[in-house]
């Protein structure tokens, strides 16, 4: 299983979305986004915004980086702290 996290405005858009997804060989953040697009097209559109970053196990990752089973995948809109 891969744990899914959505932060900031993405958390609002992802309300009701499953908090995990089945792991599979060679799964990437891009593939997760495509899988979400089936049931949640507006969320997938938000995730496709160029400023959205992804992290795997709390490290910024590429969209085509493979995700290991048991990992934590987070979608991060532009940060606004400070």
């Amino acid at each position, binding site marked *: 299983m891969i744990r899914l*996290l959505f*932060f*900031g*405005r993405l*958390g*609002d858009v992802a309300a009701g979305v499953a908090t995990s997804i089945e792991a599979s060989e060679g799964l990437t953040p891009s593939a997760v986004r495509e899988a979400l697009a089936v049931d949640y097209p507006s969320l997938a559109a938000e995730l496709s915004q160029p*400023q959205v970053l992804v*992290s795997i196990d*709390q490290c910024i990752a590429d969209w085509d980086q493979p995700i290991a089973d048991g990992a934590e995948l*987070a979608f*991060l*809109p*532009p*940060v*606004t*702290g*400070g």
Partner: protein
Amino acid sequence: MSAHVIIRVQRADFDLASEYQRLRQSTTAVGAVVTFCGLVRDLENETAIDSLSLQHYPGMTESLLEDIVAQAEQRWRLIGVTLIHRVGQLSPSDQIVFVGVASEHRKDAFEAAEYLMDYLKTRATFWKKIDQGGQQYWVDSKDSDQLALDRWQRDD
């Protein structure tokens, strides 16, 4: 030389005076202490706000802040660094963020403190939501923050 580093993400308020005293007393070589406090401004887009809530990504935030401090330590001679960021619900005039830097000479403390804030603003995983007359919305990131960061990268 490794600086005395304190990093905290917390709901509770912080006390500038005690943070300053700790930095000041890091070692007897301290000649300069620069502090920055960020406060909740009363206006957003020229309209009064009721409150602000700050979300973050626990774990990732702390490790990003550690990275940012480590980078500052490579660029300047620092004796002490303290970084505190609040999360949860805040009201206008509340303290949000504290950066404190102690060094032998003022240039290191000034530059490192400004660098830490510029990096924190654009890299650390915090998100602000504003409540303005019952309407809640997430704050957009600012181009000016990215520009502030670019300046340090040109120097690299």
